[in-house]
C-alpha cells in the first residue's frame, strides 16, 4: 500500500512539476516577426495536413535564408499540433498568440472549424486570420469580419465556379434545368459551407440538389454511394478532406460511377486524394485556385537555400505537390502583408493590428508574382477593407493517373452578382447575433 502510494505521488509530483516548468516564458525584445504555425501532422487528416505544413514552413525558412527576413526583420516561427480538432486549435492559438516581441503576426489554421472558433477571438485579440481558400464565405465582408482574410477564394466561389463549369460542359447554363447534382460533403462547417450557394443557384437554374453528408472522418461511404447509384445524379461535387477524398473515389469505382462526372473542390484535388485510388482515379476532376502542382523559380530557391543546406522540413521529392504549393503561397500572403505594412509602419516587428493594414492593402500584381517566382501558381490579388478576398477565380484540373492537368479554357470567376448580396446578408446576420459593431470602410481607406 505504502509503495503504491509513493509511486503515485511521485508520478503526480512529476506531472505537476513538469507542468509548472512550462508556464512562464522569457520574452526577449528582438528584431523578429513571430509566425505561429498551426498544423496537423498526425491523425485522420495528416496525409493532407503534412504537405501543406511543409510548404508553409519551408517558405518562411526561405525568406530568412535568402533575404535575411522581411526587410531585415527575421522571421521566427513555432509549430503547434492541432490534430484538426477545434479545442486543440484554440489552445494552440492561446499559447502562441503572445509569443515574439509583438505577438503573433497572423494565424492560418487550415481548418474551417478552427477558423470559426478563432474568428470569435479575433475581435478582441486583433490578430488577423488568413484563410486562403477556406473559412467562412461571408468573411469576405471586411466591415463585419475585420480580421478574417479568405484570400483567393471561398467555398461559395468554388461552388459557383463548379456550377458554371458543368453548365458550360452541358452547353449553356439553361441546360442545367432538371439535371441532378449530388453534393457529397464532409459533415462539418467546411462541408456545409457551399450548400447555401448551391441551393441559391438551384432556385434560378432549376437543377435538383441532392445532399449527401459523410460523417467524420469519412471512411464509411457505402450508403452514400449506393444512394448515388440509385439516384444517378448527372454530376457529383465532392467536398471532402483527408481520407474521405480517396475513399469517395474508391467507392465511385466500386459502384461504377464515372469519375469524369466527379468534381472536387480545391481541397479534394491533391495527390494524397487520388494516389490511393490508383488507376481508378483517372478522369477525376477538381478545382484549383492558388498553386496547382508543379515547380517554378521559387521552388528552385527553396531547394537551393533550404534543402541543400539540410534545413528542409519534408522530403525533397515532395516539393511541388498541390498542397505543398498551397501552404507555400499561404505563407507568402503573411510575409507580403508584413512587407506591405512595413511601408506604413516602418521596418520593425509589427503587431497584428498593423499587419491587418497590410492585408487590407495587399496588391500582388503579375509583375510581383513573377518576382516572387510564382508565375502560374496564383491569381493577382487586390484586397481592400470591404473586400478581404482579393480574387475569386479558379480553374478545373483533371487527374490523368500520373499528374494533374489543367483543363484548357477553364478559368472562371464566380458571379459576384449572386454572391455579393448573400455575403452581405450573412455577415449582417452574424453581426446581429454577436452584437458586433460594423466598421465604416469608406472612412478606413481614406485614413
Amino acid at each position, binding site marked *: 500500500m505504502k509503495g503504491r502510494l509513493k509511486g503515485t505521488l511521485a508520478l503526480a509530483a512529476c506531472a505537476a512539476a513538469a507542468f509548472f516548468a512550462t508556464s512562464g516564458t522569457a520574452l526577449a525584445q528582438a528584431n523578429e516577426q513571430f509566425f505561429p504555425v498551426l498544423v496537423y501532422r498526425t*491523425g485522420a487528416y495528416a*496525409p493532407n495536413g503534412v504537405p501543406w505544413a511543409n510548404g508553409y514552413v519551408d517558405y518562411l525558412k526561405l525568406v530568412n535564408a535568402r533575404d535575411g527576413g522581411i526587410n531585415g526583420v527575421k522571421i521566427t516561427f513555432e509549430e503547434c499540433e492541432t490534430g484538426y480538432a477545434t479545442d486543440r486549435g484554440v489552445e494552440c492559438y492561446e499559447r502562441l498568440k503572445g509569443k515574439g516581441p509583438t505577438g503573433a503576426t497572423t494565424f492560418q489554421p487550415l481548418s474551417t472549424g478552427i477558423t470559426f472558433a478563432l474568428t470569435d477571438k479575433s475581435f478582441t485579440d486583433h490578430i488577423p486570420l488568413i484563410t486562403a481558400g477556406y473559412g467562412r464565405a461571408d468573411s469576405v465582408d471586411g466591415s463585419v469580419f475585420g480580421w478574417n482574410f479568405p484570400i483567393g477564394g471561398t467555398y461559395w466561389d468554388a461552388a459557383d465556379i463548379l456550377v458554371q463549369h458543368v453548365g458550360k460542359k452541358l452547353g449553356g447554363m439553361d441546360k442545367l434545368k432538371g439535371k441532378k447534382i449530388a453534393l457529397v460533403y464532409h459533415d462539418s462547417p467546411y462541408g456545409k459551407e457551399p450548400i447555401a450557394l448551391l441551393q441559391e443557384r438551384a432556385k434560378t437554374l432549376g437543377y435538383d440538389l441532392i*445532399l449527401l453528408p*459523410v460523417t467524420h*472522418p*469519412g471512411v464509411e461511404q457505402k450508403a452514400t454511394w449506393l*444512394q448515388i447509384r440509385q439516384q444517378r445524379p448527372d454530376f457529383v461535387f465532392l467536398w471532402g478532406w483527408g*481520407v474521405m477524398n*480517396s475513399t469517395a473515389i474508391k467507392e465511385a469505382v466500386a459502384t*461504377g460511377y464515372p469519375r469524369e462526372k466527379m468534381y472536387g473542390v480545391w481541397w479534394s484535388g491533391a495527390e494524397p486524394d487520388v494516389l490511393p485510388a490508383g488507376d481508378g482515379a483517372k478522369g477525376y476532376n477538381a478545382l484549383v485556385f492558388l498553386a496547382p502542382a508543379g515547380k517554378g523559380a521559387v521552388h528552385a530557391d527553396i531547394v537551393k537555400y533550404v534543402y541543400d543546406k539540410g534545413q528542409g522540413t519534408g522530403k525533397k521529392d515532395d516539393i511541388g505537390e498541390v498542397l505543398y504549393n498551397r501552404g507555400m503561397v499561404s505563407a507568402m500572403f503573411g510575409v507580403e502583408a508584413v512587407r506591405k505594412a512595413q511601408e506604413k509602419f516602418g521596418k520593425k516587428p509589427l503587431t497584428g493590428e498593423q499587419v491587418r493594414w497590410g492585408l487590407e492593402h495587399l496588391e500582388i500584381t503579375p509583375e510581383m508574382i513573377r518576382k516572387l517566382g510564382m508565375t502560374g501558381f496564383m491569381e493577382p490579388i487586390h484586397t481592400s477593407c470591404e473586400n478581404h478576398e482579393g480574387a475569386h477565380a479558379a480553374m478545373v484540373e483533371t487527374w490523368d493517373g500520373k499528374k494533374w492537368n489543367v483543363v484548357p479554357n477553364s478559368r472562371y470567376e464566380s458571379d459576384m452578382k449572386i454572391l455579393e448580396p448573400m455575403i452581405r446578408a450573412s455577415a449582417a446576420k452574424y453581426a446581429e447575433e454577436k452584437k458586433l459593431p460594423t466598421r465604416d470602410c469608406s472612412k478606413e481607406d481614406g485614413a
Partner: protein
Amino acid sequence: MSIPRYAPVAILGVLLAAGLVAPLATGETAPGFWVEVLIGGLMTGVLYSLVALGFVLIFKASGVFNFAQGAMVLFAALAVARLAERMPVWAAVLATVAIMVMLAFIVERIVLRPLVNQEGVVLLMATLGITFFLNGFGQAVWGSDIYEINLGIPREPMMVLGKVFEGGVLVNRDDIAAALAAVLLVGALAVFFRRTATGRALRAVADDHQAAQSIGIPLNRIWVIVWSVAGIVAIVGGVIWGGKLGVQFSISQVALKALPVVILGGFESVPGAIVGGLIIGVGEKMAEVFLAPPLIKAFDLAGGGIENWFAYVLALLFLLVRPEGLFGERRIDRV
C-alpha cells in the same frame, strides 16, 4: 399472464422483416437495387463482425470490454502495409502475427494482471488507455500517411444476375473475397475452440474462471492466447478493410461501429457477433438508403446520415426485448 414468452421477439422480428421489404412494396425501388443494398449491407456487416469477434473473444475469456480492438485493427493494418513494402505480403502478415502475439504478452503482463478483479468500467478505461498508446505508437513507428495493401483483386465491379433483375446487380470482387476470408476465419476459430486442448481450456475459462483455475488451467496463459487470437482477428479485419479503403488512422474508428454489434449479439457470443454484424450492417444501409430520404423530406433536414445512430437504436430495440443481447446468457439476479 397469457402472453407467451417469445411474443416480443416474434413481434420485433415481424416488424424488422416488414421494414426490410417495405421499400420493395412501395414499388418505387427496383428489385435489383434493393438486392444491391442488401449485399452492400451484408458486406459491411462482415467487416463489423470481424471487429466484433475480437471484442467477444476477449470479453469471454477475461471479462474485459476491449475498446482497443479498433486500435489493434489499425496497428495490424499499418504493420502489414508498411512491412509489405519490404517483403512479400504473406511474409508481412506472418511478421505482423508475431508482433500481435508480442503485444498480447505485453498487455497481459502490464495491464491485465495488475487489474485482475477490478470493476468493468475500470478495465474499459484501461483499454482506452491502450487505444491512445497504440494510436500514438502506431503512427510514430509506421507513419500517418495513407498506405496501400495490394491484394491483387481487381477493383472494377462486375454485373451478375442480369437475367433475374433488370440492369443486373453490381458486385465487387473484394467484397466476395472479404466474405470468404471471414467464413474461413470463423471456421478456423470453431475448429480451434472445439478440437484443440487449448480451445477447450479457453471455453472452460469462459464458462467459469474459478472452476477452470481449480482444475489447473493457467489463467494468465489463456489470456495471452486469447489476446493473440484477437490480434490475429484484427489482422484479418485490418487487411480486408485496408485493402479496400487504404490504411490510415481513421481505421481505428471502426471499433465504434462494432459496439452496437456486440450489444446486439451479446458480449459472450461468437455466433452473436456474426449474426449481429450482419443485422447491423443490413439495417443501417437499408435505413440510410430507404428511410433517410423520406425523413429529410418530412422534417426539412440538412441531409441524411442516419446510419450512425440507427445502428444503436436498432441494437437498443433488440436489447429492450432481450437485455443480454440476442445470444447472450440469461442473467438471474439474486439478493
